[in-house]
């Protein structure tokens, strides 16, 4: 019993094997492989159209046609519907933010149901993003672009899910806020959250992540630990043009 528990403990929080995905006829992911250890922050880096978003969506069960294996805490997710994956404890913040126009800011914030205890409270979240507090009653999509991004992140922190998939969370945010999100991610990491981050802002990525996976044409082609980033700048330049 104890041994089994330890085995799961040591296993990756998320193990993605040979993940393939299609939009209608077009084959986008051609076998993505990567692992995320519990409590780790990893990024997916890559050019536009490399398939980063698609990878997150496929993990989350949002792409109808997908094959391969996605193991989350030892459990296979590949054939589950999105809602079951959410209930398993993965929270997703989409690239296009997905703020609901027919809901107020507050309703947007309170929308995702709490999956597990231990999430942030409404007050915690509002302290983290003071902009939102002033605008709680307005219609969700009346927020500025950056405010919408904050709201999108804020609402999934409430759910108690400890595993976050964030698709370009700093896009369109002012530098102060980006820094604040950086601190938030660091503190989440401290609290034991595991995070997969898709980022274009390489500096930001380097400041928060433990490891970086490089995605190209629907495959993971390299992994660079954050500690070795200085030694690999040449490679990164070739991959990303940084």
């Amino acid at each position: 019993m104890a041994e089994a528990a330890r085995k799961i403990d040591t296993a990756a929080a998320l193990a993605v094997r040979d993940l393939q995905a299609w939009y209608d006829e077009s084959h986008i992911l051609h076998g993505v492989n990567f692992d995320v250890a519990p409590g780790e922050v990893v990024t997916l880096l890559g050019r536009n159209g490399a398939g980063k978003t698609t990878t997150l969506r496929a993990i989350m069960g949002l792409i109808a046609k997908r094959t391969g294996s996605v193991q989350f805490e030892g459990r296979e997710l590949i054939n589950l519907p999105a809602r079951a994956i959410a209930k398993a404890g993965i929270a997703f913040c989409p690239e296009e933010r997905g703020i609901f126009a027919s809901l107020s800011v507050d309703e947007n914030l309170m929308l995702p149901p709490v999956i597990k205890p231990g999430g942030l409270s409404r007050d915690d979240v509002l302290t983290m993003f003071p902009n939102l507090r002033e605008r709680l009653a307005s219609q969700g999509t009346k927020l500025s672009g950056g405010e919408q991004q904050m709201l999108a992140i804020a609402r999934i922190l409430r759910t108690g899910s400890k595993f976050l998939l964030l698709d370009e969370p700093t896009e369109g945010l002012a530098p102060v806020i980006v820094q604040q999100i950086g601190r938030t991610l660091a503190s989440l990491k401290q609290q034991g959250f595991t995070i997969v981050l898709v980022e274009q802002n390489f500096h930001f990525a380097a400041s928060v992540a433990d490891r970086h996976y490089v995605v190209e044409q629907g495959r993971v082609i390299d992994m660079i630990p954050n500690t070795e980033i200085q030694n690999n700048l040449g490679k990164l330049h070739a991959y990303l043009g940084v």
Partner: protein
Amino acid sequence: MFELLGIPPQALFGQLLLGLINGSFYALLSLGLAVIFGLLNIINFSHGAQYMMGAFVAWMALTWLGIPYWGALIIVPLVVGASGVVIERLMISRLYHLDHLYGLLLTFGLALVIQGLFRNGFGVSGLPYAIPAQLSGGQNLGFMFLPNYRGWVVLASLVVCFGTWFAIERTRLGAYLRAATENPTLVGAFGINVPRMITLTYGFGVALAAFAGVLAAPIYSVNPNMGADLIIVVFAVVVIGGMGSILGAILTGFGLGIVEGLTKVFYPEASSVAIFVIMAIVLLVKPAGLFGRTA
């Protein structure tokens, strides 16, 4: 005694009250339509047919099973609502990713089928359904004779409307529903069983139509065309109120009942166009309807 435009005030009172009673039906029907239309983005053309089914099932329950009016008021919405659930599961659920028009086309077809079947089964002259004994008779209000049953219709409709409004606007369920209208995939990714929720909502909207049908059975002719005549007007009510606005549908339903009642007195020929004139004006002045949220 003073008169208003040639109508004694007491008669006017009576007419206002009648308008309110008719408004109850508009409100109930447009509420069901607004729930389905506003929350699920389905233009439910079979709403009228489902209202008609409500009346017919009540008749069948009474005639074949001996279930009285009061039982029917509970059972019929459940039965017809269940048929709605089946329709949603088997057919409508496959159309969500398409343009709204397809939902309209499907429900239009369903309405034809349902009406046709009832016509074949029961003819078109209509069937009698008596007012329940407890509610027969009426009150002499001085300015008019108010049948007890009509009073009950207003009451029942107010209660149901308010309950629905509360459930949708003031609870989380409502927020889920509204969010699911916009982006069901994302709501699903939050761990909510969107398909089931949508199915039940459709069933509920249909049950509201059926409830209105049971209420209508004793006073309007129970016949297969009873819904078809009403559906366009009810659409107009929903549009004037603002699509997706529950409160809008309710208030506009009652309000237009009254306005229509007044036109019936002052310019009866125009009473059925009045709603459309109002609709055109409202839409030109307030595009999202009286209570609608602007997108």
